[in-house]
């Protein structure tokens, strides 16, 4: 596994060609590290992740997966290269049952599908009792666990998550973040968007701060946690002035 699992170089991207949301963002994700992206609303954090997985078009710049250029590759193929993505909302299929959701995610696992399903259910015991229920009938927290389970089902090297702890009780949020921390110990690289900044920074290795579609500050998570200015601005909830 190369040192830099995922790199984003100066990308300009948006939903509509003339209206870029990202105006030159760069990110480096080291193998086996837990990285967090934080910033005010509208900073482009979700757009960044969507651009990486091919759901938003990039007009300039590069996305490199293990050094390989990802430009022009369709989302479903990018998914097959070992990247998993968990959106913030609508991250499970409500009309399918829990089991069907998992089986769908395990489609590409072939013969290993059954084994992996058992392993997933061991990791997420809360789901084993609910296999026959429609995913839409689960509680918010249970849905989130299902979404994470689906992402993990393909044993990805790189996981991108948009606010995985959103809407979760603090204990459940901690559980998920710790699960992700554990994964990095086995070499998985993780990039998270989080509003739950305190919790995330305590467990993360590195942190990027985005605003107005651009990089603002980045550094080791522990340093940013102790940096009083950053603390005032983001951890206290104050907003950064426009322009940078």
């Amino acid at each position, binding site marked *: 596994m190369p040192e830099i699992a995922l790199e984003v170089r100066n990308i300009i991207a948006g939903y509509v060609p003339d209206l870029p949301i990202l105006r030159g963002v760069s990110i480096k994700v080291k193998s086996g590290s837990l990285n967090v992206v934080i910033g005010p609303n509208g900073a482009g954090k979700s757009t960044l992740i969507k651009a990486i*997985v*091919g*759901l938003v078009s990039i007009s300039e710049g590069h996305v490199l997966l293990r050094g390989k250029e990802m430009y022009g590759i*369709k*989302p*479903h193929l990018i*998914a*097959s290269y070992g990247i*998993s*993505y968990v*959106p913030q909302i*609508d*991250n*499970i*299929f*409500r*009309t*399918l049952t829990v089991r*069907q959701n998992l*089986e*769908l*995610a395990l*489609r*590409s696992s072939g013969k290993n599908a059954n084994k992996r399903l058992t392993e997933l259910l061991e990791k997420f015991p809360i789901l084993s009792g609910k296999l026959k229920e429609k995913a839409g009938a689960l509680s918010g927290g249970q849905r989130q666990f299902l979404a994470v389970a*689906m992402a993990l089902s*393909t044993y990805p090297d790189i996981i991108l998550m948009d606010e995985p702890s959103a809407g979760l009780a603090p204990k459940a949020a901690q559980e998920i973040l710790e699960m992700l921390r554990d994964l990095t110990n086995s070499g998985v690289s993780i990039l998270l968007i989080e509003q739950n900044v305190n919790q995330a920074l305590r467990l993360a290795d590195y942190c990027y701060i985005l605003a107005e579609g651009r990089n603002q500050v980045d550094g080791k998570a522990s340093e940013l946690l102790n940096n009083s200015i950053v603390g005032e601005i983001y951890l206290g909830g104050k907003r950064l002035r426009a322009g940078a």
Partner: protein
Amino acid sequence: MIQHLLDGILVGSILSLGAIGLTMVMHILRFANFSHAELLSIGAYVALVFDKMFKVTMPLMANEIGPLSMTWALILSIIVSMVFTAASAVLFDRLVFRRVREKGEELSMVFASFGLSLIVRNLIGLIFGLSTKLYSKDIVFATVLSRDPLLVVKLDQLATFTITLVLMLVIHIVLSRTTFGYSLRAVGENPELAQVNGINLQRTLIVVWIIGGGLAAVAGVFYGLNNQINPMIGRDLVLPVFAATIVGGIGSVYGALLGGIIVGLASNLALSILPSGYSPSVPFIIILAVLLIRPNGLFGEARA
């Protein structure tokens, strides 16, 4: 009254087959495909051509199956027609709809479908002539199910209904028990999430067109078998098939199944109240009723 119910279910099952492909396309591509009904017409005519061909080249196949007027040749022709019609559906998408989408004009797909339906319908008329045709010139006698109340049914109708039920069962099994079926439903519910989970959107779309086209072919042949074959099949079935998708809820295959039966029943029951000249308006009234009472249909959901 019960006779109307019987006829209604029969007609309805044909509409159901036609509606399944339409509801999937409408849900995934978000456009009302006015040319879908022409696939039924294509299906009917292609089967006619091959039926005649098989009867001539393989006289044994011209034997009727039991008491039905259907021949083995026709069964084979239906299969050929399914392939041909499915291919046509994919071709239409490749030639017209995809190009319109790529130009960024999603909304224009509806016009394109209007234009396409005009072309297909009238080309069929030009090629095959405007007169009505039949698969078999034999007169089919109706079987009397009961004398009082008088209930008659043609065995052909029973056969078509049975085949339709079998097809519906197959579809149900695929959708509820195979990962392929899950992937179809997933794409319908959330195309982005589906792609992120490794589902090839383009390929799924082609499969949807193939299934829709194949089922439309069967529906077209059955319609031709139970009524007659003429170039206006598409024009006559556009509104009823749309009504079936709206009643059932756009995007729901089960909704399309049920919706077709409901539209068929309602249309036939209406015939006992209204003068027959008004029957083309009944699907429209049904659509209005659905919009007033339950706009998303039976099983439809407002799409994210």
